[in-house]
């Protein structure tokens, strides 16, 4: 079984956010981590490797430094890393990103593609399903559990909603988008790190993408235009109170709301 996990390097929420003049994120200037939902998806893939000996490839699109998340994935147990990087791909929205990743995936063999539900920087949850659409694959989003039946070539997924869940089955190949509940990511191993740093990362540019049109790539190919972007306004430290009784607490809150003319 071959599994491809699409991962994204995203700004570390512990660090500050920096923007380019065009409103896109200045990724080169920020601390970066592997997107948490993608990491849960990687864990699910590594469990399939533990159980069935699946070959796990991690794929990312980004700046050359995005290779760091591929090395992290390899240090956790992934077999191969593919980095798609090219100046013409920069500033891509979800449409241009999914077009690019689908173009890269057409070069790879897969039974199952796993993406994170959404990235913590864009929060769109669009890229995974769009990739599936480009490739003509079934997609199951919001997966919190995943089982593969290798013999029957099908996947069973528990799909989460706010108040219920669905049990869905799809035949392979298909694409699943992962919630963080899909798996608590394992740690890297020290030896895995040493191997990962020496591992060769396959690097592809625009010309390596299969069956894609330039008009759908990069900032120029992105229908989404960012009008304005700003860092969130930091809230004050707030006020901590420890009222003696629930009645006092209610009285305090009503007083505050009244003070702010909220009621």
């Amino acid at each position, binding site marked *: 079984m071959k599994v491809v996990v699409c991962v994204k390097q995203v700004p570390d929420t512990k660090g500050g956010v920096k923007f380019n003049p065009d409103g896109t994120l200045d990724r080169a200037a920020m601390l970066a981590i592997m997107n948490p939902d993608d990491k849960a998806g990687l864990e699910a893939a590594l469990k399939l490797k533990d159980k069935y000996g699946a070959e796990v490839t991690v794929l990312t699109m980004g700046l050359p430094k995005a290779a760091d998340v591929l*090395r*992290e994935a390899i*240090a956790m147990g992934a077999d191969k890393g593919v980095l798609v990087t090219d100046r013409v791909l920069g500033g891509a929205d979800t449409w241009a990103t999914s077009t690019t990743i689908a173009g890269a995936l057409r070069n790879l063999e897969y039974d199952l593609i796993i993406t994170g539900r959404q990235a913590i920087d864009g929060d769109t949850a669009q890229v995974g399903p769009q990739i599936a659409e480009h490739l003509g694959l079934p997609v199951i989003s919001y997966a919190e559990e995943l089982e593969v039946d290798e013999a029957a070539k099908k996947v069973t997924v528990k799909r989460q909603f706010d108040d219920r869940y669905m049990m869905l089955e799809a035949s392979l190949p298909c694409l699943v988008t992962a919630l963080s509940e899909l798996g608590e990511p*394992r*740690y*890297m*191993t*020290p*030896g*895995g*790190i*040493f191997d*990962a*740093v020496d591992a060769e990362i396959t690097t592809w540019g625009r010309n390596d993408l299969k069956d894609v049109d330039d008009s759908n790539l990069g900032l120029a190919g992105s229908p989404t235009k960012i009008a304005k972007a700003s860092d969130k306004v930091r809230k004050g430290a707030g006020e901590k109170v420890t009222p003696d009784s629930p009645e006092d607490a209610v009285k305090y809150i009503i007083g505050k709301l009244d003070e702010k003319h909220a009621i």
Partner: protein
Amino acid sequence: MEFTLDKKHEMARSLFREFALNEAKPLAQQTDEEERFPRETVDKMAKFGFLGIPIPKEMGGQGCDVLTYAMAVEELSKVCGTTGVILSAHTSLCADPIMTFGTPEQKEKYLIPLAKGEKLGAFGLTEPGAGTDAQGQQTKAVLDGDEWVLNGSKCFITNGKEADVYVIFAVTGKIEKRGKMMKEISAFIVEKGTPGFSFGVKENKMGIRGSSTYELIFTDCRIPKGNLLGQQGKGFNIAMHTLDGGRIGIAAQALGLAEGALETTIAYVKERKQFGRSIAQFQNTQFELANMATKVQAAQYMVYSAACKKDEYTKNPKISYSVEAAMAKLYAAEVAMEVTTKAVQLHGGYGYIREYDVERMMRDAKITEIYEGTSEVQRMVISGSLLK
């Protein structure tokens, strides 16, 4: 000469830091308070390869280097001195001598499970009458047919009751050295569960309280002849070689404790207000922190340099790292004691309260000046090399 870490070591450090914060830190208070061996953390360390960091892959290890191992002990000790020493004793004092002096059969049987983390290791040299003076050994081993018969006891043994494999030293006879009759000491590998091998008192310690420090008792304990480690009579050399490496582990533990206390104190002085402003704004605090940080940095360079020297030794056994290890341990241990003491002082009354981490760190730091060779022994090793 490089003073920056390469990518491998940077990634390894971030792994150890994340693991320490997620796994070891939440248990540190309880480990200390209840003298509880943090088995769940050790099991996780085993699962992710931490118990075999500097051991080659073909021997079940991770194939990394001594520097990586030292960084693991350092990061763990930043949040929990107990967890740091568990790893140090296992790796430096048990796996290392078997890797260095063991036969292929001994490596297959003992080193591979130790490196994979399936077994935990310990080391027994110290006896009630034999601390710094290894010649004071009373534990005896007598060859009887195909078995060695051990009688005697060892004390203050780290990982004591929790380990599975023990490197034990015992007197196997007498030899003449420079006209004097000396005890002949040999090293052995003893497995837990061997009839005649039992545990005595558990020590109630000032610090590193979760590390399972026990007395080991051998009463007609029979082990196979093949469990002699290295040559008969070479036990003293094996012990000294092992302690040279062990000192790098303890130096890393001391470094971690100092760093942990410094980080905790920096955060505290920013929050703590007196006379209407944070105590970080007082020049005394600033100067104390500056001194602490400078010493911590110097200790780190010494520890890393000793670790790199041991790495060189693995490629070229003619190189000695004994003096560097002694200097690193001496300095880092004294820095740990000084920095943790100052950290308590900067915390004021809160620093004396169990709830605050620096209180534990100061108690944990003291042992680094004592075990695996006291600071005085390190000075003997260092001066011995200067005056030979």
